[in-house]
Every structure is written in C-alpha cells, then in structure tokens.
C-alpha cells in the first residue's frame, strides 16, 4: 500500500570493535549485526535470509510490519490497539525467527516506534529496525510532506530518541513528496549515513 521509494543502503565501511560487555542495546545490536553479516544468525529459529540490495543486511523473507501497532488517534490509523497485544505479538514473531521490524515515525505519530523500542530489549540477538521519514505532522496532528534537510535531520533525531537507538538500520522516505525537494532529501540522508546515524 505504501510506495517505498528509497532504501538508503546501509553499508558501514568501518565497523568499530565491540568493547566490553553489552551494556546497552546499541552494543547488543552491533554484535548481532556482525553475526548476521557472517551468515551465522543466532536467532532461535534458522530462517532463510536474503541480502537486501547491495547492503550488508541479511533479512528474513518475512518482517514485522508495525503500522497497526501505532494504534489510534491519527489520520491513517487502522483502529485502536492495545500494547498488551502488540508486544507479545512482536515477541512471538522474533522468537519464530523474523529478524526485522518495519516501522515509521508516522505510525501513531511516533507511538509505533516507542512500542517497538519497548518490545526489543531482552529478546536475544536484536532485530534490524527500519523506519521512515518525510511524513510530518504539526501540533494538531495534521499531516504534511517535507523533504527539507533540516526537517529530515530533526525527524531522524526524534526517531532515534523514540527507538532508544544510536543508529537506524534502514531509513526510508515514506513517500517521495514534494518532488522538487527530493534531491535535498536524498542529500541529507547521505549526510546522516556518513555521520553514522543511519547504516
């Protein structure tokens, strides 16, 4: 239903060594990525994975779509949703071996990202988290489209905060609008990647 245009490729040229114990989720995450890139994904189930584009991500053929868990109260909702259902649902899918979650800032106007963040700790190797930018909203919840550099940068920081992460595994342009700012948006995504905020 959504037109996913952009997949900012998540190639990390230089991996930092993992130092010490995994004291936070970011470290756990990096460790799991290293494992998966070497073809030794250590999830409970061994599901077939495929390389995503020319990135170093190897994703299971099914991923967790996090639209509905954004819940109600926004234009695009697919109905009310209880976190006491959402989190066990995510856990069930991770335990079955799915290794990626596709969310968006838009889903529940930030709520889906918060639920994803809440669901992930303590589930073994952390899954990849994909999210999206460009669909923005104002204080009244009215949605808009923005590909301006400053807006995308702010969106990225907001998503990182909600996800309690230091890096986004795949950052996507939700819809490629407006057309005349597409190049500016892409340029900013490239900067975010260079800065290590996006893989």
């Amino acid at each position, binding site marked *: 239903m959504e037109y996913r245009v952009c997949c900012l490729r998540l190639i990390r040229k230089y991996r930092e060594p993992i130092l010490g114990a995994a004291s936070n989720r970011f470290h756990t995450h990096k460790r799991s990525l290293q494992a998966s890139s070497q073809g030794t994904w250590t999830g409970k189930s061994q599901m077939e994975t495929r390389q995503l584009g020319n990135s170093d991500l190897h994703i299971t053929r099914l991923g967790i779509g996090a639209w509905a868990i954004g819940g*109600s109260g926004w234009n695009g909702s697919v109905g009310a949703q209880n976190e006491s259902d959402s989190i066990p649902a995510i856990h069930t899918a991770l335990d079955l071996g799915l290794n990626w979650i596709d969310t968006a800032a838009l889903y529940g106007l930030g709520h889906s990202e918060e639920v994803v963040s809440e669901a992930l700790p303590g589930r073994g190797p952390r899954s990849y988290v994909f999210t999206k930018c460009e669909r923005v909203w104002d204080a009244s919840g009215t949605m808009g489209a923005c590909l301006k550099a400053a807006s995308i940068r702010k969106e990225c920081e907001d998503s990182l905060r909600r996800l309690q992460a230091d890096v986004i595994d795949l950052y996507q342009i939700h819809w490629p609008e407006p057309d005349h700012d597409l190049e500016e948006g892409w340029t900013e995504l490239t900067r975010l990647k260079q800065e290590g905020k996006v893989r």
Partner: protein
Amino acid sequence: MTRERVAKFSSEDWRRNLPNFQEPLLSRNLKLVESLRAIGSKYERTPGELAIAWALKNPAVTGASVGFRNPKQVSGIIGAAELLLQPTEMAEIEDALKHQGIT
C-alpha cells in the same frame, strides 16, 4: 479478511475509505480470499499465507513486511516464510486473479 471484520472497522479506521474495502471491490476481493483458501487448504495454509508466499515469489521482492496485532495473528501468517509455491499453485493463483479481473 471477512465481510464481518470490514463491517467492524472503527469509524477512524483508514481502510473504511479505501475502494478495496467497499463495494464492488470488496465482494471481488473476498471471492479471491476464498480461492486462496481453497488452494491453500492442500497445505493447511491460510489465504494470507498464500498471498504473502505469492508476493515472495516475485524475484524483485527481497522480503515482505507483514502486520499483525496479536500472537494469534502471527500464527496465521508465519507459514508463508517456508511456503514455496510450485508452478501449478502459482498458475492456480494467477487463474483466480484473472477470474476476478485482476491481472
């Protein structure tokens, strides 16, 4: 999807306004669900699993993100990951799509 579920969409549910969930497309789509159910019954797979497995056969598709609201719904789709449709099933699905005027 069922007609009952569509009727129960809350007033704010975005899908209410989508043509695919309104007549005449709703009836057409629900017929397709029944076709998928019949094809999937051989493997004890749900219509949803058939639909996802069909999408994954497309060589341009690396992975499919699938939404669910609770653990029970996960059990209704998880089989798609390991369901490799054979040419005969793909042909049956294509026939069902053509029969409903979807190509």
